[in-house]
């Protein structure tokens, strides 16, 4: 700690030596030279300074090195950037469509297929989304081939008509007998008609996927050109309306009553009857958990009898209604039935006033007028609200609006896998850019593991796009990428520039270092002086 007073004698020895016998008589300016230090004292002082420096050098420095070295796991940065730039994967959706034409000769059917494929290829301008026709084997008994996304059932009829099967992805097309193209024909109205039907059936999916690709940083060479601005706008609107993909959604069905009645509802049967079928068909893509509640004496945020468009957004009384934002980690979709006689202002004089509206990324509200003394809401009364909610649910999950339900769901799966694939890729890119931009951030091994898993699953997802496996892999990839990016120990260091280290080290180590360094400097000085004196002595001896 403190050195004894004589230790300082070495530093001030250049003062003029005014020897004075009595220190009492000495003027303050006249300083007394300290008597020479004993060699044993000097040696002891060197040893003390040496002991401190030994601890600093042997223990302090290795510990400093060990504890503040930043662990940076090796990340495949180039590969990650390739993924985010879209160089690693070209999203291609090869969609196979079977044609079943029992009434046609093999030759005729082949011919029709060739012509239709030509017509389709002429219409298509987006290579990533490709419809490929194939002839279903006539022996096949199943009405729909599970490998293909759509089966076209051609049957002779009176006129050219097309209709979707409501339960299976089947398009029924009838044709007049004379419409079958001849062997040599290079075009046929029937082929063009079929191609047109197919194109319109997949137009929305194509537009959605091309919109997704265009909003991500996919290079323009296989980005579809000419997405009409109005189409893009409506797609953007729909994308913002739908919820972010999650493997599980939590549905909260609430019955709000302005008075004390109704106090009970037959919601379980209603859900089983009207909602469950759709939830079942959605189950390959999402899981759902459901809870329900009844709230009495609930006051809505807007009291007016007729609700204008502006009122709808403030109808939900967020302050008082117990609608929790999220239960158990899964995002919540709220469906609110409000019992009351309020109505929604009709958009036009002759339009039907609607009873429900959708709140983007949140849920839907249905206004249910009931007689004032209804104590129990039966399942039949709930049919219309629940059917409405079901269609809102499809919109909220991001399903396309047109087409038959089975087709919409398979489209939803493809859109979601493309979405997840792109999102995981861009997260990887962000992580790579972060690792490049902040050389002092630590990258724990968990992050490297997450990145490796993400890339492996992205590769699998990319190879099997359009199939259920593709969705599964894309889902894993996205979850892993998010986990790697939001690694807790990295987030904390995001805003820690190198300059802050001065503020961390200096306040404590600075004051500690000053006596250590000054002591060392004095020692070095004294050692050099001693060496010089020795050399001088040796010289004097020689000269004598």
């Amino acid at each position, binding site marked *: 700690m403190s050195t004894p007073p*004589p230790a300082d004698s070495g530093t001030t020895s250049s003062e003029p030596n005014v020897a004075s016998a009595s220190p009492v008589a000495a003027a303050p300016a006249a300083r007394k030279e300290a008597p020479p230090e004993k060699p044993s004292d000097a040696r002891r002082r060197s040893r003390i300074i040496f002991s*401190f420096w030994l601890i600093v050098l042997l223990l302090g420095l290795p510990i400093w090195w060990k504890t503040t070295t930043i662990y940076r796991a090796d990340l495949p940065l180039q590969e990650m950037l390739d993924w985010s730039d879209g160089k690693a994967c070209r999203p291609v959706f090869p969609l196979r469509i079977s044609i079943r034409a029992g009434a046609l000769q093999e030759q005729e059917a082949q011919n029709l297929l060739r012509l239709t494929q030509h017509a389709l290829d002429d219409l298509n301008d987006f290579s990533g989304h490709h419809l490929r026709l194939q002839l279903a084997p006539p022996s096949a008994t199943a009405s729909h081939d599970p490998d293909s996304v759509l089966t076209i059932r051609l049957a002779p009829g009176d006129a050219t008509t097309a209709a979707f099967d409501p339960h299976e992805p089947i398009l029924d097309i009838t044709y007049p007998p004379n419409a079958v193209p001849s062997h040599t024909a290079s075009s046929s109205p029937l082929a063009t008609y079929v191609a047109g039907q197919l194109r319109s059936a997949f137009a929305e999916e194509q537009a959605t996927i091309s919109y997704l690709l265009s909003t991500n940083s996919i290079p323009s060479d296989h980005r579809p050109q000419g997405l009409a601005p109005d189409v893009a706008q409506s797609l953007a609107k729909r994308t913002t309306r739908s919820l972010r993909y999650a493997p599980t959604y939590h549905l909260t069905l609430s019955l709000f009553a302005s008075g004390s009645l109704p106090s009970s509802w037959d919601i379980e049967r209603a859900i089983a009857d009207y909602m469950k079928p759709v939830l079942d068909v959605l189950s390959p893509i999402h899981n759902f958990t459901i809870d329900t509640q009844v709230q009495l004496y609930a006051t809505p945020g807007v009291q007016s009898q007729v609700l204008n468009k502006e009122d709808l957004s403030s109808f939900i009384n967020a302050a008082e209604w117990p609608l929790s934002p999220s239960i158990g980690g899964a995002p919540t979709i709220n469906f609110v039935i409000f019992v009351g006689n309020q109505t929604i202002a009709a958009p036009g004089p002759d339009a039907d006033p609607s009873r429900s509206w959708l709140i983007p990324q949140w849920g839907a509200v249905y206004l249910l007028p009931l007689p004032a003394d209804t104590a129990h809401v039966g399942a039949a009364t709930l049919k219309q609200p629940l059917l409405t909610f079901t269609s809102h649910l499809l919109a909220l999950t991001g399903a396309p609006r047109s087409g038959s339900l089975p087709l919409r769901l398979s489209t939803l799966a493809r859109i979601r896998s493309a979405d997840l694939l792109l999102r995981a890729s861009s997260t990887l890119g962000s992580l790579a850019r972060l690792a490049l931009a902040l050389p002092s951030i630590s990258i724990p091994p968990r992050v490297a593991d997450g990145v490796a898993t993400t890339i492996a699953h992205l590769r699998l997802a990319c190879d099997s796009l359009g199939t259920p496996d593709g969705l599964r892999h894309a889902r894993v990839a996205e979850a892993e990428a998010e986990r790697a990016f939001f690694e807790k120990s990295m987030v904390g260091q995001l805003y820690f520039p190198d300059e802050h280290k001065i503020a961390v080290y200096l306040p404590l180590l600075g004051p*500690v270092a000053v006596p250590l360094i000054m002591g060392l400097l004095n020692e070095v000085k004294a050692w050099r002086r001693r060496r010089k004196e020795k050399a001088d002595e040796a010289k004097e001896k020689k000269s004598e």
Partner: protein
Amino acid sequence: MAAVAKVSPGQAAGLYAAAAALRLAVFAFLPGLSDLLAARVEVSTPVTSFKRLQEGLFLYNHNVSPYDGGVYHQAPLLLPLFSLLPSFAALPLPTDLVYVVLDLLSARAIWRIADSGEAGSSALFTSPRRAKRWSGFVLAAFFLFNPFTLATCLGRSTSAFTTYAVLHAIANAVSGAPLGAMVALAFAGYLSLSPLLLLPPLVLLAYDRRRPAGPAPRSGPAFAAVCAAAVAGVLGALFLLSYLVTGSWEFLPSTYGVQLTLSDLSPNIGLWWYFFVEMFDSFRSFFLAVFWLHLSSYVAGLTLRIRRQPLVVLTLLLGIHGIFKPYPSIADTSLFLALVPLYRHVFPLMRYTFLSASVILYSAFLGPAFYYLWIYAGSGNANFFYAITLVWGLGQSLLVCDLMFAVLRDELEVERPEIVGKEIRQI
């Protein structure tokens, strides 16, 4: 009291009886006071708290690992000792008697150290002022009636065990029993880790005071090696015994690990907790190492500088530990203050006695008030309490520096008699 008066056995018995009676009276008639003290942060740290000991004891008696739950951080061998006593909740007297006896034994050790005269005249140095000293009786009384010692005893802090082990080690070393000193030091280190840093000066002290006819080796390095081996052996045996008692090595991270990594950040009168509450996570391990190195760096320097008076080094190191160890309490201060009066002969050379005494008193009174303002009244914040612990540390370091200055000046005056009585000046 300049001359050492002969103390009759009756006076000694009277002193011990008075100290024991005072403690037992408070335990018996003011149980609220001892409960209050047991809950104070100044008395009970996470590694010495009696409340936590009881928690560990309960788990131990129910065949659960005492370290489950992360409350108990004390040495495992305290558990069988306390579980031999009748339950504290049903019959507190035997437990209280243990603490009273520990204090009396500590006082007896101080008495032995004082009577040896080591403070005034060691093997290599004899102070010209040594005649002016206090007797062991006075020092024992100082220790026994020091409010800090009283609070530690009444708060039933287990640091009383460490205090006794350290004092016993010094007393053994002074009276020429190196092996006994090393065993006692191993116990102190086993109980609270930091006393292990006292090993080098204690070995020197034992070496200086060894009996000429004793079995100890003659040469210094061999003596030191034997001493270090004895400490290591006893520590190893204690660890093995702890392993047998608790059935796992879990006690190592839960007791010494907590001291080394400061994983329990509850406030105490030390300087560590606030610093590590504020520290960035990525620098935490580095600064833990810096703090421990800082604490241990004094050993070599002081031992080399005051080689001729190892007891001074021990005293100063105990003072430094009371300031800079991870979980200090007033028990550490009371241990340091118990040894300071040994240097009665250099008190006239100290320059800041008034200042350091007032700073220590000031912070001793304001500390509890600021803690109250922070924790209970809510009108202060953590900075209030931390500021007063800084002042507390300042007061103690003033005392440590001043004592060191006085001892060094005493040594210097022997070398250069012409400076006696003169003011020092930096030249």
